[in-house]
């Protein structure tokens, strides 16, 4: 792969940690979600674009309630 996924994961963690208006629980959810989406986007042998968007949509929908608390 081009840029290291580890680097992106650490950048996601760093950016989310700086978000003052979120509590730790929300930060964890957002962080995990972003990392998951990036994994989907950069995965080899992944599905079609539409399928990928549906998966992203599904991941967000799944986490939305927990994120709202």
């Amino acid at each position, binding site marked *: 792969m081009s840029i290291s996924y580890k680097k992106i994961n650490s950048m996601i963690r760093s950016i989310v940690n700086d978000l003052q208006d979120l509590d730790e629980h929300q930060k964890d959810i957002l962080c995990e979600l972003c990392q998951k989406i990036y994994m*989907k986007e950069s995965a080899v042998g992944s599905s079609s674009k539409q399928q990928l968007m549906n998966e992203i*949509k599904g991941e967000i929908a799944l986490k939305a309630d927990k994120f709202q608390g």
Partner: protein
Amino acid sequence: MKLLNAHIKNFRLLKDLRLNFSTSLEKPLTVIRAANETGKTTCEYALMWGLYGSKSVLPKKGAYPLFPADLEGAGEKRVEVSVEIEFQVEEIRSVGRGKQQVESSRYRLIRSCIEYATKDDEVNRQSESVQMFAVKSNGCDPIPALEVTEIIESSLPEALKDVYFTDGDSAMSFIEAAATAGVKRKRVSNAVEALLGLEILNSTTNHLERVASVFSGEIDDTDYADELERVNDKISGWTEDIEEWEQERKEYEYQGDYALKELKGLRQNIEAALQLGDKSQLIEDKKLFEKQISRYSENRDQELKALSRLISSKAVSKIFIKEPALVAMDMLRNLNKDNQLPKVNIPILEELLDRDNCFCGEDLSEGSNDGQRRREAVKEAIESSRSSDAIQENASSLFYGVRSENFSNDSLWMDDYADKSSAYQNSITSLSEADNALKKLDKTIAGIDDSRLKELKEQEDLLKNKAASITTELGKRTAQIEDAVTRKAEAEEDRQKIERRLGKTNTSAGKLTLSRRVQAVFGQIVDKLKQEELRRVSQEMNRIFLEMIGSDPEANSRTLITRAELTDDFDIVVYGPSGTTINPDQGLNGASRRAITIAFILALTKVSEVEAPNVIDTPLGMTSGYVKQSILNQCLKEGTQIILFLTHDEIHGVENIIDDYVGTVFTLTNPAHYPVMLVNEPSEDDKGILRCECDHRHTCKQCERRYMEVA
């Protein structure tokens, strides 16, 4: 990604060559020792061809035949070329049900093609194909064709081939003066964007935008539903347009690059055709020759006339009669001295016949017998004097005619003759030489088929027009994209206003909120990469570069190179004392040019934290001493797998560093170098490159070389 091994067959002079590479963390260095003309660059080309194929790697079809020259010479008409590469990569893989995981995979890639010689001695390439297998402990699984390019792009993107495969030429491609500033910026920005993975991130942002639009559209608020839908439609439309136009722009950029490459190849062909002779120029030369021959011919005629005049001159007669003439002159002078010249008897005797008395008083009258007798005597004397008088008259005439002639200065004539004769000979020689040259020129002109040159020039014109048209289209797409981006941003502002008015209790609103949060995170990542990480690349490049060239401006104000920078516009700039800028391609020496390019590549690799091989052909050329050691040290410090093609001279002076880091080392030898450069006659008849396991310090019978001064 790490390269494990490669097997190259019939790729130019690499007839059957196996390469293996070190993957050790402690010993990341692979050294392939090879003298000049031993296939270093060809190895690089073969590896790149294996990964990316002819379209991306090789110059225009036919301009770079892979067909091994000796096979062609042996009458072979068809050859199978293949490159097999094994590599391992840590990748994110979809494992079903929307799940992904990080895996370490090992792949074997086999690219092959058939090349055949046509009747016109040209080489055609066909049936290029690529196969890939996942290498597992229990065997190999074939990879579906559609996934092969994706795996290669994910492992080592094609946009980075100049970063990871660098040779003497392409290493300079980021700074070379021959390229325009725009082209250089494009190369640098492509490398930066590819290595920082901006394409994936941009794609993520676009997908998130669409997902958010869907959530936004699902919000149940009748007051704003229509308006929101309309704005979302607009944004989706702009997003799709931008994506489509960017694809088109990329395609145009690719076509533009390809056209430039083709143009470069075409110009090389034109240069090559011109080396055979420019027929129109030679015809002009012929006219000049003909004029020169005409001048030489006139000159020869004049010289011949002058020589003829000299040969028919009085002076030459004097030389031929000199000896008898001098004797005659003496005789005449003596006669003259004796008052014998001029002396004639007949007129005096005839005068006596007109008189009655002689001068002495004797009777001469006709009436007397004595007189009659004397007159008869006078008449007899007249008759007898006729021949002597004629002789005397001639002698007198001759004497008075030649008495002033000088017979002693014949050497002047000889000198004159030598000069004129020499001038005549010279004129003949010049004429003959010019004639011969003209004949030779005629033969050359007759032998030149300039239809090829004309055809190439026509192709060049067509290609130039094509390139210009691509540039125009590129400009149009760029303008369209910029306009669409502005309109999309305006629509997004409108949507924000509408969304703020919407109820937040709706579940879709919650999803929308989370989508926007995720979108914002990725937006920040892109911004950070574009700004902070680009600055880090710049700082790292500066640090590595200054270390490589041993410049410390803080410790020494006299230093000539003070800083290197990668600007926000993707220009690589080098600074001299007092902040003056130095053109990297023209103001730096060879070693520093190599250092700045390698420093850029290493900085980019370091900042992106990517594990990938750095395959570098002759990185230490044009360097010596500290800089040489420092470049090698920095490569080893910053890279994860360093594969270097080094000449014997490059190795000299850095053996200790190689000792410390080398995991794999072997030597390549070109048997064609015997006996001039190789000591021993190769044991094999094959003309391909040979490999032996000799390291950087040793030689064997196969690779032992002569070291000699070339006069």
